[in-house]
């Protein structure tokens, strides 16, 4: 990808991000525990790249995306976007920074206010952050509609008059309105027809090329992530278990969970499909309110070892740019990066 001489600039740095939701129970609503939706996630995203974030339902990928944009008040950890630490600053101070980071949502129907016209929806961020006059705003709205391939004549229609793909285009136009640098795409294609998915993904790629956007692309569609992402992070039960450049990850997955996940991707060629051995995981995902001791994956791992049940594996760099959290790879740390410093240096090596 971007392995030119100068190391690409990090636009997002997430360190040890934790997002725990309290559980209240009983008559007095006492706090009896917490759901560890995101539990210590660290990664970097470089300018102009797409980081794919994959994992099964409920593993915390969407929460992670929302926590990075501070839709939640995060429990612990730090988030640096475009050089500014935003992990714990109040929403008021966050407001002027909002234009830099936006989000495209999963359900295009639910992410558009049913009482507002398309022009009002796309124009709202402009009202919020710019002092544009009415006409200048309308001009910008038309520009954005052109950019995402919407007919200008539809500017004064309501969202319910559009198809799913068109609605997602409206959502993308809204996200683009303030010229953001970083966009979290929270399963932007999961609610769309397969034929429309390709259109929307192509639109996202096209916009990335034209506007130099950086994406965090959250999805459970491994084939789509393979298509769009330059690097891929795999999440399981609130933690990133593996992070690697796309081709490495898809060709030689290191973590047993990644291996199982990739073995589930259907192969269009029946001849080669027969050769692939499906790794079928036993049991269910443990509750994030009560994760297992040791490695989170130890209850279902096909290659579980005694050490997995009491010691949590560190998230270490085992090859340049490849990170994995698994005891199987304890011995394969790259020598020049000591384990403790590995997490901090992960971005530089790619």
């Amino acid at each position, binding site marked *: 990808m971007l392995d030119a001489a100068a190391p690409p600039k990090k636009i997002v740095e997430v360190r040890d991000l934790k997002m725990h939701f309290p559980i209240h129970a009983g008559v007095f609503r006492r706090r009896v525990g917490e759901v560890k939706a995101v539990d210590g996630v660290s990664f970097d995203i470089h300018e102009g790249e797409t980081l794919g974030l994959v994992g099964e339902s409920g593993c915390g990928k969407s929460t992670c995306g929302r926590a990075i944009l501070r839709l939640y008040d995060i429990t612990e950890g730090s988030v640096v976007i475009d050089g500014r630490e935003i992990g714990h600053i109040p929403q008021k101070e966050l407001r002027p920074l909002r234009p830099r980071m936006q989000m495209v949502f999963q359900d295009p129907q639910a992410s558009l206010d*049913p009482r507002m016209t398309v022009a009002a929806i796309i124009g709202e961020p402009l009202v*919020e952050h710019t002092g544009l006059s009415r006409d200048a705003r309308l001009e910008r709205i038309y520009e954005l509609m052109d950019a995402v391939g919407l007919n200008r004549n539809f500017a004064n229609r309501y969202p*319910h008059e559009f198809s799913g793909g068109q609605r997602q285009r409206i959502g993308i136009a809204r996200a683009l309105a303030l010229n953001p640098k970083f966009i979290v795409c929270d399963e932007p294609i999961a609610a769309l027809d397969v034929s429309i998915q390709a259109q929307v993904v192509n639109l996202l790629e096209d916009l990335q090329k034209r506007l130099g956007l950086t994406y965090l692309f959250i999805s459970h569609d491994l084939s789509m992530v393979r298509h769009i992402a330059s690097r891929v992070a795999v999440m399981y039960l609130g933690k990133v278990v593996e992070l690697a450049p796309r081709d490495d990850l898809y060709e030689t997955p290191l973590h047993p969970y990644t291996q199982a996940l990739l073995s589930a991707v259907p192969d269009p060629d029946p001849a080669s499909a027969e050769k692939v051995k499906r790794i079928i995981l036993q049991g269910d995902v443990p509750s994030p309110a009560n994760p297992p001791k040791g490695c989170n994956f130890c209850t279902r791992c096909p290659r579980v070892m005694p050490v997995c049940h009491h010691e949590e594996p560190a998230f270490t760099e085992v090859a340049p740019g490849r990170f994995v959290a698994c005891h199987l790879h304890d011995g394969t740390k790259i020598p020049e990066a000591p384990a403790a410093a590995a997490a901090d240096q992960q971005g530089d090596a790619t």
Partner: protein
Amino acid sequence: MNRQDISRNPDDPRLGFRAWLLTDTPSSRLHARCVAFYAGWLKLRSNTMAMVGLGILILLVLVAAFAPWLAPHDPLAQNLAGRLQPPLSESHLLGTDSLGRDILSRLIYGSRITLYIVALVALIAPIAGLLVGTIAGYAGGIVDAILMRITDIFLAFPRLVLALAFVAALGAGIENAVLAISITAWPPYARLARAETLTIRNSDYISAIRLQGAGPIRIITRHIWPLCTSSLIVRVTLDMAGVILAAAGLGFLGLGAQPPSPEWGAMIAEGRRFILDSWWVATMPGLAIFTVSLAFNLLGDGLRDVLDPKEGG
């Protein structure tokens, strides 16, 4: 003319106002709103019963507006010689009451009082409920708990009993009756608004707006209120029958409008003494209350079908 032909040339002046209202490509936000409103109106128009209700209410408003010209007699003029005349008697279409006042004229003037009460309650109660409900729903936590427990206290009393207590404390009279009815009417609106707010605040479009940096006041006023209003409007129209009955009930108990004011509930109260010999004195205002309550209910049912926010428009 079918819709396709029209939408092809939305600017064609020959097609006129209706085409302008039916276009697929509105030219401005106001235009879009008109189009949406007209679509809703077309939907409502196809509901016969709702149109009957609307017709009765329009008639009521017209009657109230033109009462001095419509009423055959002065509603307060007494004529003890012609007291308790039956309906269809000479110059008294609906008969006269115990003081010889023309019942039809009193009903016509009474519609003004009814509309006055209905309009004021329809303004005060939903707005108070909307404020309390959206603040409770959006703020959550301790604010929500306090506001909702207050609401529960109000809901724990039967409406008329609570209104009676307030009127007794504030003193009899039509303004106090309005106030008392509003005080007892707002809690259901607060509950409704809170429930709507809870679903809306967690939706993705509110997340999107928060991502743009909008504060809670902007979110509540610009996004949550408009989405709550349609269900509140439906609730108001369905509630109006209850308000009319409560006002009539207060009047009947002598705590609402005071004699000789021709309030419908008070008229029934007066007729109660003669109900066995002169049935019309109590029946005519009763029929008026019944008709108007029914009209509000019919319209409310129709509006509920049209104003479902999930349908959009």
